């Protein structure tokens, strides 16, 4: 059993790990002002900690009014997507050491959705687009008594898009979505893909028609922002391309 990496990790943790970083946060509270302002906070933090830990240090020890959503704190619940140094990330999956703590770290709400307070946005339009693509299994005929059979290969076909946690990092990184909130956006298409390519599903045609709309997949300009932004490593642009191809060939 090899242990060299661990020894290194532990040796590092023995010395005082704390550094001072500047968190530059875009604040907005309509109860106080209609304008948003950047505010700097200097905090001591171990660079192996998360951006979420930095936000908590501010909220808990400095300024209780700082407002953001979070829950699981390890990249599963999708609550804390935000724009960190200009890129969409989950605050709980982004370590301070990985985003150049020498310079101020900027944190702001994700774009394209209405900011309600500080880092909290209105998620309703995002979930509405999701609901519009029929994100559920549709089958016809009588239900079998046991499970529906599916080969491992058929299961693998849509594995990537089952990973989505609906954090909106992809959709709110998309320039098309910024310019036109009517566009379904990458996350909704990912969730349509998850069912279109599921061998058990029988509503692929209906979903494709929904996405054939003027606000559907054809709006995608393959800028790959969504793929870069996805904290689950889903190949979002590829999934969108597969849906486009299915629309042309009607094979899926």
């Amino acid at each position, binding site marked *: 059993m090899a242990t060299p990496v661990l020894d290194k990790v532990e040796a590092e943790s023995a010395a005082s790990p704390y550094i001072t970083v500047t968190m530059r946060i875009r604040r907005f509270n309509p*109860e106080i002002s209609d304008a948003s302002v950047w505010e700097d906070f200097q905090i001591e933090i171990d660079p*192996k900690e998360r951006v979420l830990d930095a936000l908590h240090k501010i*909220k808990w020890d400095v300024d209780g009014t700082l407002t953001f959503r979070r*829950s699981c704190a390890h990249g*599963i619940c999708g609550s804390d997507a935000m724009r960190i140094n200009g890129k969409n990330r989950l605050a709980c999956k982004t370590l301070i050491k990985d985003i150049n703590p020498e310079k101020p770290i900027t944190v702001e709400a994700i774009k394209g959705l209405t900011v309600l307070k500080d880092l*909290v946005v209105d998620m309703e339009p995002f979930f509405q687009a999701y609901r519009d693509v029929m994100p559920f299994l549709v089958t016809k005929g009588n239900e079998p008594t046991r499970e*529906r*059979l599916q080969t491992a290969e058929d299961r693998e076909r849509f594995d990537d898009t089952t990973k989505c946690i609906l954090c909106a990092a992809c959709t709110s990184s998309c320039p098309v979505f910024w310019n036109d909130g009517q566009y379904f956006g990458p996350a909704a298409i990912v969730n349509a893909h998850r069912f279109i390519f599921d061998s058990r599903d029988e509503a692929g045609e209906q979903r494709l028609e929904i996405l054939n709309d003027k606000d559907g997949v054809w709006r995608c300009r393959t800028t790959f922002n969504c793929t870069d932004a996805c904290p689950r490593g889903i190949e979002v642009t590829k999934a969108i391309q597969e849906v486009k191809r299915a629309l042309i060939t009607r094979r899926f």
Partner: protein
Amino acid sequence: MKIHKYDTVIVGAGGAGMRAAIEATKRSRTAVLTKLYPTRSHTGAAQGGMAAALANVEEDNWEWHTFDTVKGGDYLVDQDAAEILAKEAIDAVLDLEKMGLPFNRTPNGTIDQRRFGGHSRNHGEAPVRRSCYAADRTGHMILQTLYQNCVKEGVEFFNEFYVLDQLIVEVDGVKHSAGVVAYELATGEIHIFQAKAVIYASGGTGKFFKVTSNAHTLTGDGQAACYRRGLPLEDMEFFQFHPTGIWRMGILLTEGARGEGGILRNKDGERFMEKYAPVMKDLASRDVVSRSIYTEIREGRGCGPEGDHVYLDLTHLPPEQLDAKLPDITEFARTYLGIEPYTDPIPIQPTAHYAMGGIPTNVEGEVLSDNTTVVPGLYAAGEVACVSVHGANRLGTNSLLDINVFGKRSGIAAAEYSAKADFVELPEAPESLVIAQIEKLRNSTGSERVADLRRELQETMDANVMVFRTEQTIKTAVEKIAELRERYENVSIQDKGKRFNTDLLEAIELGNLLELAEVMAVSALARKESRGGHYREDYPNRDDVNFMRHTMAYREVGEDGSETVRLDYKPVVQTRYQPMERKY
């Protein structure tokens, strides 16, 4: 203030809440009130699987599953409930598959199954493949699938509505549920939901520990709302410490890692579980494995400069197997520790994971106001509840099962009740308690800070009522919690606004945690035996003569306003299994 009227109101939108909502919405006018957007719920963090004796890959049957559940719970399990759990498990898994859940598949296309802790063939002979899974994302898939089906069924959600009070009204001397009071996070507005039936499905209380796999939001809100209104809490001293949390962070690394062949090793590289559990080894029940880990650490065989953790070794497993079966937990190791699990072992320590205790219910999900009396119109399911199918220690994969079986049962039972029941008249000024609580916090100029009190609470809980407990440590915790509760009276918040006031939210959550921590510690102090997750070094043996019984804790308020926890006990339901010594 707004008043709403629904047949059925469900509090919480994790697995149990949404499973209940799918049934209740088909049968009654239903609203789901949830502190978080449904897909943020912590069901999504569950990894390893959901147990059901499908026998898809080897011989199995639900009677073996029942036995394992009873034995795993150190015989504190109500055996009639465990039998329902194991029997209905099969349909619960098949229901989810039909709803679209993408399970991993066997070569012949059926649902694949793998080994998990405490699940055995023929009453303990050898590990059995009983856990139905989707990689190490089973909870995520369950949460997504249930949400998808809620969308399909048109379930009505009130997102970011935080339930703060349970309305109880006495009718002919019997406590009835009249509805709930909720706080709308976006606006600060108070909402009264009058309902014929209320189902609590609001999850656990893990955030009173420091090292925990639980989300920040798991603060026992449902338990506290009921307890404060005079309803009992059952078996709160039983808390599960999952053996493999990421060292210092507590992030869960599934038992499925050991189900796939992972091995726990001490600093000498020894597979130490062979000493403690010769048959099941690394797949013994969680309480046994967590105690073994701490025994290794205490005896100087822990790893690292401080000897405060052990290793989860996956390095002998093929990288393809890790990629296919354990993709998320291996990524956690890379992201949070900078470790490559293909080549290096992962430092782990036990992490506070699951509350076996909670709001007492019968097998229909009906809440009890004492050992036998049902509160008409009040239901609970999932981690918030205590049926009790988990007894003194829950088996891995039985919680995803619990939320599906008892979520469905309570959803049906509540909707059928509301179809024939009338609304109970609301009490006068139903919002008064909540308004007083909020205004007190908002107007306080006290010097105590929420974060300081919470840190001190978490530290005392980790130090004193974790895997090993003694009279002395528990007393230390009881005293510290009393001090913190007194200081909480002086807590103030900085955000005085109405809009998304999460500063206020955290203060309320802390109040819930403090109250429940006290119940836990007082319950633990009185249980002078060791059973499942409750291990007393001063009473290291199980004592069936004096303690084969459930703890029932009640809040008592004295004439001077002082609060105490009063303990009572409830018999355990035993059907076919006589208590035996527990060996793995």
